[in-house]
């Protein structure tokens, strides 16, 4: 595991310049005005070396207090969501509720390449920080609004929690057991769909800005981004006159998903022909090591498991499939997840462990690729381990991971060092609680 020290960052924005080792997006500045609905968007930019300045209200962005926490404390540096999703960003505390704060943001926007926000629709417009207002000072600005349900429908001003977005986009209705409540994933997902879509859409606008020199306003609908996760089932009502509903508790599963219990957990595998045939046959051979396999299974001629026969759905084939399915389920109960994965690795089977976070943390594929990154966090007095980069570049590797910023850690650096406020101006704004800095002890 690579470890990044807690001192200086590797690269800093240099007005569009490319810094060796700085990552493919080094030199760009992003103003991140998002809460949990957009946090991942800025994180994606930061991962590739952009200078992402998180503008936070006094007291800190609410994302700092999303549980679970690193330990017993629940302070602004203790949340796992924040440490993960703000990694690599800088923190500047500005109160946009005060006119002087809004003026500071306008000035920051003049030198920014991107602004990403997830306030309730109309909030920034109402305080003089609309796209049009900021574009007047910086026509190159790309201004991306992450909305829950779009900006034009009856829900344009509605608010969301992650579970509400999951429901609105169609994923929830397909998850859970019949007769019981539809479910979300226990690590919430919906906001991340919208936020990652916002990152892509912002970069699409950037592609055009390189030619035209002009920015634009981008609007993202988290709900619509979530619909993309439904596996295009949205066409079923029109084309097949049906819609999918909750499919049940495993191992009943839906036809295209099959989780099975093993001795100490679960694995995912499909019994069948085609790409699943080698796995099916291999597992049955393994079963034979424990004793005789059922006669029906032993008698199967797998050469007859052709796609044509599978598609025809003939009764003999289905009986064979069911027999194999039962035999394999029987085998799996006798062996552990680790044994199954080990055999699968050796034989190239299509078998997937149903991993826990502990399994994912120990995964040898991720270890071989040095995925996890350890960072020092002087404010917490400990190291943290973060998810690593999501893409590997041969020419411009992503810069090493950097920890999340402490509240107001970069207020002075950005506003004095880069925006050019004098010491007196800075002190006056700080005294009026327009801005907050770590040195002030931030931060109430």
């Amino acid at each position, binding site marked *: 595991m690579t470890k990044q020290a807690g001192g200086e960052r590797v690269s800093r924005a240099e007005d569009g310049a490319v810094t060796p080792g700085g990552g493919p997006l080094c030199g760009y500045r992003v103003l991140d005005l998002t809460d949990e609905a957009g946090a991942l968007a800025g994180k994606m930019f930061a991962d590739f070396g952009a200078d992402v300045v998180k503008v936070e209200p006094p007291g800190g962005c609410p994302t700092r207090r999303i549980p679970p926490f690193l330990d017993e404390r629940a302070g602004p540096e203790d949340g796992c969501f924040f440490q993960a999703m703000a990694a690599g960003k800088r923190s500047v505390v500005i109160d946009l509720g005060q006119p002087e704060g809004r003026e500071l943001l306008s000035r920051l926007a003049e030198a920014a390449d991107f602004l990403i926000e997830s306030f309730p629709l109309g909030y920034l417009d109402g305080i003089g920080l609309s796209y049009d207002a900021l574009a007047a000072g910086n026509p190159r600005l790309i201004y991306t609004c992450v909305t829950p349900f779009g900006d034009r429908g009856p829900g344009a001003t509605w608010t969301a929690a992650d579970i509400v977005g999951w*429901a609105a986009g169609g994923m929830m209705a397909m998850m859970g057991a019949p007769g019981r*409540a539809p479910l979300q994933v226990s690590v919430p997902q919906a906001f991340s769909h919208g936020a990652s879509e916002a990152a892509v859409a912002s970069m699409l606008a950037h592609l*055009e800005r390189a030619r035209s020199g002009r920015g634009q306003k981008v609007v993202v609908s988290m709900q619509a981004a979530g619909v993309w996760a439904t596996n*295009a089932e949205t066409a079923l009502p029109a084309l097949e006159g049906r819609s999918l509903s909750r499919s049940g508790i495993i191992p009943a599963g839906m036809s*295209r998903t099959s989780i099975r219990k093993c001795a100490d957990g679960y694995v995912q595998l499909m019994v069948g022909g085609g790409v699943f045939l080698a796995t099916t046959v291999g597992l049955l051979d393994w079963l034979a090591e424990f004793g005789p396999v059922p006669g029906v299974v032993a008698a199967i001629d797998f050469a007859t498991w052709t796609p044509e026969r599978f598609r025809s759905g003939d009764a003999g084939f289905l009986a064979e499939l069911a027999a194999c399915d039962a035999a394999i389920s029987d085998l799996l109960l006798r062996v552990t997840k680790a044994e199954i994965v080990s055999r699968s690795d050796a034989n190239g089977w299509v078998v997937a462990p149903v991993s826990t976070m502990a399994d994912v943390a120990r995964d040898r594929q991720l270890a071989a690729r040095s995925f996890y990154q350890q960072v020092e966090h002087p404010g917490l007095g400990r190291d943290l381990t*973060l998810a690593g980069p999501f893409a590997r570049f041969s020419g411009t590797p992503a810069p090493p991971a950097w920890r999340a910023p402490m509240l107001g850690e970069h207020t002075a650096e950005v506003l004095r060092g880069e925006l050019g406020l004098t010491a007196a101006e800075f002190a006056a704004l700080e005294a009026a609680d327009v801005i907050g800095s770590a040195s002030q002890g931030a931060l109430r």
Partner: protein
Amino acid sequence: MTGVADGLRVLDFSWFGVGPITTKYLADNGAEVIKVESRKHPDGLRLTPPFSGPPGINRSQYFGNFNSSKKSISIDMTTSAGRGLVRKLVPHCDVVAESFRVGTMARWGLGYEQLREIRPDIIYYATCLQGQTGPRAGFAGFGMQLSAIAGLYYLSGYSPEELTPPHGPYTDFIAPRFGCFALLAALDHRRRTGKGQLIDLSQYEATLQFLAPAITHYFATGVVAQPAGNRSPRYAPHGAYRCRDVDGRERWIALAADDDQKWDATLAILGAAASPPGLAAHADRLTRPHEVDEYVGRLTSSHDAGQLAAELQQAGVPAYPVQDCSDLRVDANLRDFGFFGVLEQAECGPMPYDGFAYRLGRTPGSQTAAPNLGEHTSEVLSRLLGMSAAEIRRLRDDNVLY
């Protein structure tokens, strides 16, 4: 055609979900994305329902949805003449995309190192489940497998004994955004430096970005995140609650409240006189979520989900009906965002498509339907390579264009 990706050309060997969805972002915004397939090895989704009308290689809406606005050329890559044609096309392209098992393209002489010799600034996007390197680089599988491997299946369920995975090849709809973002970053880097590069997108590593908080938590505490139904450490109530059936169909509402004001507003709208004494404070509700769920579920059961969501939202409480796909088709917010569309497909006629989840205000993209297999073979070969009709015919007769 005008779009942000005008002028870009992508030679796209990718198939199924992640690769095609990645390049679709470019195609829908004006890039010329040329899909390379053959009748021998069509994109597997072409054979997968739902179909528009009878099954057929050009009739899958599932395929269509991920391949809008693209072109298709049919070349049998198992022939050396076919691979030779591709090598002639590469210099005309900015991006090569592929999602084969690791090593396949290199065996065809079309790996990154081989192609950069003929197009030095090529951007080569390679995506597979677990990445191009490492002991499981060659792992073949789909999004269902990866959802299990990456921890999403275990985190989905009422309890560890009652797992209920997210629908379908779920990670196929996470990874493309990371892939496209990386591709766009590489294109910008090429613009600034003139240099191309290889992008290795591990769908596993991309997916883990959605689980990053749980990863940090595990490493910091050793606590293994558990499937917890709809429980939340932040909200109570937090879940899906049964509403009045409509036309014999179950209706549910998702709602969440994280303070007393939202709780009180919820109760008022649901017609409860006052909070049960033990549940009046947010901190108490967080410790007694079962009671909260039971109480709220009793109250919602007589309400209409749609109307209730609108009323709760008016009061500032996050809420939405739990929508299935038929609900999505008539959802007013998706409609007003312009999400669903109908595109004219060459063989099928009008076909339903999912649209944009984003809107570029000044330069909106525009979609056309997915191509028939090989629909653009002649057009692309004659335009880019200057091949004559006779040459093209000969290659067809030789089953190179197949």
